[in-house]
């Protein structure tokens, strides 16, 4: 009986000692001992491939969250000479990603020709190119792989990200973001030229009616 009590005492002391050590970070916890170390990338340099002068007036940025998925059933057939092919049951691979997209809509001001701007001392008339979708961004930090069953290569992930980008474009079109972008461009440029001293600013879009005076 006394022996059992001594053993119990030693066990209790060991547990308390271990608890105290882990509490004050003298020893790693069991959980952290078996926790896989995160894989970190090396700090490699970046190479500048191209520098380009642009003139894009971004007037609308839409942020969306979408889900894209793909499922592939891999079937295997065994061909035995003189016998019909045997088809083995299919194994299904599934990949589901949740992606946040940023759609930038605006005017490509580089398409503005010299003849598109005219004016007098206090009034100005500008014909802008129509609004367009300038970027749809789905970056790696915006993507969460929600379900991954089976092996998937980089092309499959890229295809799903592109699916999200196409969905974002069609969503921007259906929500009338091009029209909203043109309206905002008129506001921004009118404020700019009025601040520059023009009393009257007329902005028109190519092939469209006059938007504002």
């Amino acid at each position, binding site marked *: 009986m006394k022996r059992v009590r001594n053993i119990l005492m030693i066990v209790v002391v060991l547990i308390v000692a271990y608890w105290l050590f882990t509490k004050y970070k003298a020893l790693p916890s069991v959980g952290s001992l078996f926790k896989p170390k995160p894989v970190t990338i090396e700090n490699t340099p*970046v190479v500048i*491939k191209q520098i380009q002068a642009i003139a*894009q007036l971004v007037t609308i940025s839409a942020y969306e969250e979408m889900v894209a998925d793909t499922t592939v059933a891999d079937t295997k057939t065994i061909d035995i000479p003189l016998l019909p092919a045997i088809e083995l049951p299919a194994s299904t691979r599934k990949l589901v990603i949740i992606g946040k997209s940023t759609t930038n809509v605006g005017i490509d001001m580089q398409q503005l020709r010299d003849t598109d701007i005219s004016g007098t001392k206090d009034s100005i008339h500008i014909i802008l190119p129509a609004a367009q979708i300038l970027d749809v961004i789905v970056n790696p930090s915006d993507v969460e792989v929600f379900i991954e069953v089976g092996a998937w290569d980089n092309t499959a992930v890229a295809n799903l990200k592109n699916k999200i980008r196409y969905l974002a474009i069609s969503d921007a079109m259906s929500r009338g973001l091009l029209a909203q972008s043109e309206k905002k461009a008129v506001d921004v440029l009118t404020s700019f030229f009025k601040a520059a001293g023009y009393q009257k600013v007329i902005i028109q879009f190519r092939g469209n009616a006059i938007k504002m005076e």
Partner: protein
Amino acid sequence: MLILLIALLLFASACRQKEKERDLPATILAIQQTGKLATAEYTLTKIIRASDDQTWYKIGDRKILMHCEAHLKAGIDLQQVSRNNFEVEGDSLITVTLPHAQLFSIAIPPNKIQVAYQDIGLLRDPFSAAEREQLLAQAEQQIRKLATSLGILQTAETNAVTYIQHLLQQVGYKHVSVIFE
């Protein structure tokens, strides 16, 4: 009877609530109106190198080498420009004070990410899609940290000066001076 009627009414209202939730646009998070004039775009490439050999109980290691392209855009926010930013002297001289350039976006196009090489130990699993995305997110973070040191803001300001000068000369100002706050 009364209790049954109340229960039925509650059930009907709950069903209506569910129907409403289904009608909500689930994807859109926000639409922001801006007035950003992007004037410089940098295209960068980066090699992403990682070794998974730090976990003591995993036998064998895994190595991956990827490369990606990133597009960075920077420019000036025209919404910060007001009447106070312009100084007109006579009919042909104007001075514009612009706000400093900002980094507007970093985009890593999905088609510009490639896995160049993988070395997987016999007892290890290949890198999953989720793991590759985590490594790419780290690369994106490194690019974001480096971005301003690449001179993109200076280039954006130089291009903004050229563009604004050209724009105001087109509307009749002979001498346009552009400075930054």
